[in-house]
């Protein structure tokens, strides 16, 4: 408490950078434990051709030397190296092309989750044990129990095959993003609705809100001034895990809907030994998750009266 105010934040930032380094090292050595080379193909390359390729990508050096080289390039040049599959294309170029797709998908899903989850959760809490609450309870249970590729299958057969409203795959227009964004966002919305309901119920019983009620504050003013602020803190804390869940989901949904995002790149890279691309994508994922958590923590410290009191 005697330290300057920015110190906890700096410490977190330091921890975050350290995490990135550890993730980098761990993925690097894991990926290089794979057997065989990345240039294996049905038509085998002649030995001298393969040797030339390995040399070009420095894959003929000892692993620790490769690691130091990769670390140096990353730290000093922000360079993740060339992709092994997309020859001649840098991983950073690949990520710059595909990350916007995934980010748009993930952000849309998050928005859907917030837009549907929070109001529905509030509504259920205020109508506790009435039909909105029960209906929502059943609905959220169903969405939580459906794996997102099952949801995607149902959505495609309904909206693409039966109704012909939305395209079944591809990324040619904004229309193409509607189905995947909802398939990704709705399970998250269900979780959020439950969380909002529980925290709102707890908040409604807390002394400050009871006191406000006793003073005659009701309805919207009560909700916005006294309940929401408290109830949303756990929701903010949930953003980190939600981002992780959306990330996992996007790995599958980008395949189902043939979207040119990072998830599709990452899965193929991990399965087919594109070390550099898999590594770059993992780092970016770690960064996005870490930043979301940092952001959520910052939000909590802004809104949570207890956190304020501490600092």
């Amino acid at each position, binding site marked *: 408490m005697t330290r300057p105010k920015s110190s906890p934040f700096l410490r977190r930032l330091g921890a975050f950078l350290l995490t990135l380094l550890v993730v980098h090292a761990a993925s690097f050595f894991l990926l290089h434990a*794979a*057997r*065989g*080379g*990345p*240039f*294996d*193909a*049905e*038509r*085998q*390359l*002649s*030995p001298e*051709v*393969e*040797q*030339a*390729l390995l040399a*070009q990508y420095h894959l003929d050096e000892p692993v620790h030397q490769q690691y130091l080289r990769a670390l140096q390039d990353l730290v000093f040049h922000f360079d993740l190296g060339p992709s092994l*599959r*997309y*020859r*001649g*294309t840098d991983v950073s*170029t*690949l990520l710059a*092309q*595909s990350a*916007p*797709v995934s980010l*748009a998908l993930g*952000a*849309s899903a998050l*928005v*859907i989750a917030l*837009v549907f989850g929070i109001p529905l959760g509030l509504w259920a809490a205020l109508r506790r044990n009435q039909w909105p609450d029960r209906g929502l309870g059943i609905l959220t249970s169903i969405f939580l129990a459906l794996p997102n590729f099952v949801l995607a299958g149902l959505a*495609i057969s309904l909206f*693409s*095959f039966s109704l*012909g409203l939305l*395209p*079944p*795959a*591809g*990324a*040619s*227009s*904004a*229309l193409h*993003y*509607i189905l995947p*964004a909802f398939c990704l966002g709705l399970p998250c919305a269900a979780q959020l609705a439950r969380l909002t309901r529980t925290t709102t119920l707890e908040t409604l019983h807390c002394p400050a809100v009871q006191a406000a009620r006793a003073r005659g504050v009701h309805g919207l003013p009560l909700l916005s001034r006294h309940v929401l602020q408290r109830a949303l803190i756990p929701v903010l804390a949930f953003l980190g895990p939600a981002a992780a869940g959306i990330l996992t989901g996007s790995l599958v949904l980008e395949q189902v809907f*043939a979207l*040119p*995002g990072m998830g599709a*790149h990452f899965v193929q890279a991990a*399965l*087919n*030994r594109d070390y550099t691309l898999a590594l770059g994508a993992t780092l970016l994922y770690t960064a996005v998750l870490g930043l979301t958590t940092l952001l959520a923590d910052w939000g909590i410290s802004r809104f949570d009266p207890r956190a304020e009191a501490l600092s």
Partner: protein
Amino acid sequence: MASLLLVVGAGSCTQDAAVLRIANGADPAILDPQLATGLADARILSALFEGLTRLDALTLQPIPGLAESWESSRQSRRWVFHLRKEAKWSNGRTITADDILQSWRRLQNPSTGAPYASWLNDAAFTASESTLQIDFPHSAWNFAEQCAWPALAPIPSELREGQVSALAFGAIASGPYRLAFRRLRDRVRLERNPHYWNTTSTQIASIDFFTVESDTTALNLFLAGEVDYSPRVPPLAVSALKAKHPNSFATTPQFATCFLRFQTQDSTLKDPFLRQALSLAIDPIALIQVLGAGCRPASRFVPPDLHDYDASCGLKTKRQTFDPEAALVALKQSNYRPEEAQPLAFLFPSSPRNRILAEFLQDQWRRNLGVEVKLANQEWKTFLTAQRGLEYQISRSSWVGDYLAPETFLDIFQSQNGNNRTGWQSQAFDQLLQLARDATDSQMRLDLLTQAEDLLLQEHIILPLYHDESLELISPRLKGMHQNLRGWIDWSALHFSEASHD
């Protein structure tokens, strides 16, 4: 959210009638004609990079491309090509004989990493202003046809000298189209090349090659009207397609074989009787029933589409047959006792269709021989490493011919060929192929190749399972597609008809 979606949508284009949309397959690794191998890549590259020759989409015979004419002499050891004077790159520069020479030197250079480098092994070339002479130390019977393959097409100096980024490869092109833009994992967009020597015949303004890995997704996109052409269809959907969309569906034999490799250095499978028993126990007709459309029964390794070679084989052919009784006899003669021995292992690359194939084979071997086989699937690259390292007993394999001749298939089982991957080394086989290569008479060459293939089959090094058939969906409004053995498309012949719906 709407704004976010708009951001994403803004980068893409509206669909208009002048765009041909193709569900192409896997994302090309790079649009460098010298580095590509897959059929999906070759499809794009053949629209971008024209070679000295092209193929006639009906007969697959070489026809003039960048070269106006050519001749060969000395048993096809010397080839001379005469370049077209009006041949230009898409930036307006003339394509010279030196361009071709430099491109081929790049192909030969090991540091390029070109898989087709061996096609020009030991070849010597000289160029004058507009003629090009190539000398091989052996007969190169099919060189004019090979010249149509993108790997032998010239590439512009900017690309040779590494002045353009990999994503812009194809922006300077020699073919009917040039690259407009590329979005990885989404599409490759081509636009008409205004400087193509035959540009007046090119009718479609742009082509979108979409990255679509799953054939079911390709089918769904076609049915939703999102693409005009899909070179692949899930085999199981074929009967429904024939019934409901007869005007869109097309199928034709392909110059390719799916087969099993036996690992002949394995302590168990080195036993030829066991390999014979395993080979005779597979019912090819039932196999084709299980797999559905897209395959035709195979009795040899080289697909039965080469009339001269087939005629030569027909005289003294040794056909693989399904004979469970003979299989049991062979099993008795072998040292393998299914009751006591460890189960055999079957390795295949992960894919739903391969899985079905594997489960079928497992079922057949169990039912017809009482031999237990364990299945293992691996991701493509892992699988290839295992196959190369001979870390398997039986594995699923396939081979697609690069030109219409038996050598493109038989060459791979020479002792020193990197594609052999069976551990089988036969001097007799190598010698037959060498003799065929040096043969001066074409019938003699075919006879020698037939003997070589018989040897391969009699020793049960491989078991041919089926030859592929293409399964294609072509929008009825798209005209000018000709089905052929190699999936070759004549891009300038394509056009849209005014009105017609499926």
